C-alpha cells in the first residue's frame, strides 16, 4: 500500500467532517438531550480525531467512533461539573450513560437526522425560529451566515436560536419522528421551512441581490436528505422537483446587470437541463403516488414550462388545468392570480383582466405588486396605454426588490414613449 501524504490525509479528514458532522450532531443531541452540550461534544470528538487518527489510522466506522467519543467527552465533562453542582440534574442526564449498541447503528443514526428535522421545525416554534434552527443544526450554517442570509443582525439570529433551544428544553419538545397520524401535518411545517429557505435564496425578499444561491442550494440539499429519509412521501418529491425546476432557470432569469428576464423572454439554452430532467423525473414519480399536494402540482406546472421547446409553444391549457386542481385543494388568491395569467395566455388578455378585476373588487392581494403588474400587462397587450400606466405605477409603489422595480420602470418608460 502506498503511504498517504499528510496533505491527502488532512483532505480526507476534512471531507469526513463535512460528510459526517451533521449526522453525528443529530445523534449526540438525542443521547445528551441538549443542543449546546451536543455541539460541544461534537467539537471535542473531532478534536480527538485530529489528534488520534494520524497515528492510529481512520477507524472502520468513523461515524460510530465520533458518536462514542463525543458521548464520553460529554460524560467526562458532566462528571467534572457534577462535583461542584448539586445532583439535581442527574436523572435527566442518564440516557447519556446507558450505552446501547443499537444507538450507533447506521439505521438509528439516520432516524436521528429525521428526529432533528422534526424537532427544529416543530410548529410550537415561530417560523423564523424554525428556519434559523434548521439552518444552524441541520445545515451547519454559522449564526453569522444565517444573519447575513436573512439580512438581520447576528445578535438577532443568535437570540432566535437561543430562545428556540430554550423552548425545546422548557416545554419539553420531544426528539422524535411524529406518529403516522400526525405525519402529514408535521411534514407540512418542515416543507414550509425548506421552501422558505429556498425562496429566500431564489428571490431575496428585499435588497439588491436577486439570488442568494447558497440558501437555495442548502434548501435543495435539505429536501434531498428528507427524500432519502422518507422516500415514499409524494410532497417531498414534489418540493424537491419544484426547487430543481425553478433553480434550473437561475442563469437565464437575470441579465448580467441583474435585471429580471421574464420566463417567455429567457434564453432556454441557459437553463440547467440536468436539473430539469431530474426535476421532471421526480414530479412524475410524485404524481404517480397517492396523496400528492400543492408542491407537486406547482412542480408539475414548472415542468410543463420546462418541457416547452419555446415560450409560444407552452401548453397553457395543461397549465390552466393544473391550476384548477391546485385551486380546488389549496384555494388561495395567489393561485387565482396565477391561473388568471394562464387563462390570459389561452383565451386572451380580456379573460385574464376579468378575473383580476374580481380579485381586486374582493380586496384580495391589495399589497401584492404582481397583481397590479399582471393587470398592467393585460392592459398593455390590449393597447389600453393609460390604464396600463396607472397599474404599473401602482405595482411600482408596492415592489420592494430593486430588479423588480427596474423592470416595472422600464415598462413604464416604454409606454410613455409610445
Amino acid at each position, binding site marked *: 500500500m502506498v503511504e498517504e501524504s499528510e496533505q491527502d490525509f488532512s483532505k480526507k479528514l476534512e471531507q469526513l467532517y463535512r460528510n459526517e458532522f451533521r449526522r453525528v450532531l443529530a445523534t449526540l443531541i438525542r443521547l445528551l438531550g441538549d443542543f449546546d452540550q451536543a455541539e460541544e461534544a461534537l467539537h471535542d470528538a473531532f478534536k480527538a480525531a485530529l489528534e488520534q487518527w494520524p497515528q492510529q489510522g481512520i477507524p472502520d466506522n468513523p461515524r460510530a467512533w465520533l458518536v462514542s467519543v463525543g458521548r464520553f467527552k460529554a460524560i467526562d465533562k458532566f462528571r467534572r461539573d457534577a462535583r461542584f453542582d*448539586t445532583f*439535581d440534574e442527574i436523572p435527566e442526564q442518564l440516557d447519556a450513560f446507558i450505552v446501547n449498541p443499537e444507538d450507533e447503528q447506521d439505521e438509528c443514526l439516520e432516524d436521528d437526522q429525521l428526529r432533528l428535522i422534526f424537532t427544529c421545525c*416543530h410548529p*410550537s416554534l415561530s417560523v423564523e425560529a424554525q428556519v434559523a434552527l434548521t439552518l444552524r443544526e441541520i445545515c451547519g450554517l454559522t449564526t453569522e451566515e444565517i444573519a447575513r442570509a436573512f439580512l438581520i443582525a447576528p445578535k438577532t439570529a443568535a437570540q432566535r436560536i437561543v430562545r428556540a433551544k430554550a423552548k425545546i428544553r*422548557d*416545554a*419539553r*419538545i*420531544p426528539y*422524535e419522528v*411524529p406518529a403516522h397520524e*400526525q405525519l402529514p401535518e408535521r411534514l407540512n411545517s418542515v416543507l414550509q421551512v425548506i421552501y422558505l429557505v429556498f425562496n429566500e435564496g431564489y428571490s431575496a425578499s428585499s435588497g439588491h441581490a436577486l439570488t442568494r444561491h447558497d440558501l437555495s442550494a442548502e434548501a435543495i440539499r435539505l429536501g434531498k436528505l428528507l427524500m432519502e429519509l422518507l422516500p415514499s412521501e409524494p410532497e417531498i418529491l414534489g418540493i424537491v422537483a419544484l426547487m430543481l425546476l425553478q433553480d434550473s432557470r437561475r442563469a437565464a432569469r437575470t441579465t448580467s446587470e441583474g435585471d429580471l428576464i421574464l420566463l417567455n423572454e429567457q434564453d432556454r439554452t441557459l437553463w440547467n437541463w440536468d436539473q430539469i430532467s431530474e426535476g421532471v423525473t421526480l414530479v412524475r414519480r410524485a404524481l404517480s403516488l397517492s396523496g400528492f399536494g400543492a408542491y407537486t402540482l406547482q412542480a408539475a406546472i414548472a415542468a410543463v414550462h420546462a418541457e416547452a421547446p419555446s415560450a409560444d409553444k407552452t401548453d397553457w391549457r395543461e397549465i390552466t388545468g393544473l391550476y384548477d386542481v391546485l385551486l380546488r385543494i389549496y384555494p388561495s388568491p395567489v393561485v387565482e392570480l396565477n391561473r388568471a395569467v394562464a387563462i390570459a395566455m389561452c383565451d386572451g388578455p380580456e379573460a385574464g383582466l376579468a378575473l383580476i378585476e374580481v380579485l381586486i373588487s374582493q380586496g384580495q392581494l391589495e399589497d401584492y405588486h404582481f397583481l397590479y403588474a399582471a393587470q398592467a400587462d393585460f392592459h398593455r397587450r390590449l393597447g389600453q396605454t393609460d390604464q396600463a400606466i396607472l397599474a404599473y405605477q401602482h405595482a411600482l409603489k408596492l415592489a420592494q426588490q430593486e430588479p423588480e422595480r427596474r423592470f416595472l420602470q422600464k415598462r413604464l418608460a416604454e409606454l410613455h414613449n409610445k
Partner: protein
Amino acid sequence: MKYLCLICAEKVMEQMPQADADEHYEEYREFTSNIRKSGHFVDCNRLLPPSAAITIRVRKGKISSMDGPFVETKEQLGGYYVIEARDLNEAIQVAAKIPGAARGCVEIRPIANDAQTLDVLGLD
C-alpha cells in the same frame, strides 16, 4: 411534566343556549373521564364568566381593584385542565381532545417544576 391547558372561547357555558351548553357539558364529561382513565388528568375546572372577574394591583401598599379580566379580548378564559404528559407532543395530543379546542382555542403552558421555584415556594 405538567402542562396547564387554558381554554379560551368566545362564549362560556352561561352564554350558550341551554341545549348547546348541555351538549358541551356532556362532551367535557366524556373527555374528563377518558383522561382520568389514561392517567393524564391532574386537575380541572370551569371559570365563571369574565363579568365575575376582578383584577387587582397593589401599589405603595394600596390595593386598587378593577372590574373585569386583566385583558379584554373577544375570546375569554372559560376553564382549565392541568394534565400530566411525557412531553409537549403528548400534551398537544391530549389538549387537542378538549372539547373547547373545537370551538375556541387552548393555550398549552408547561408548568415550571424546577428545584428553585419549589424551594422558594416552600414546596417539595
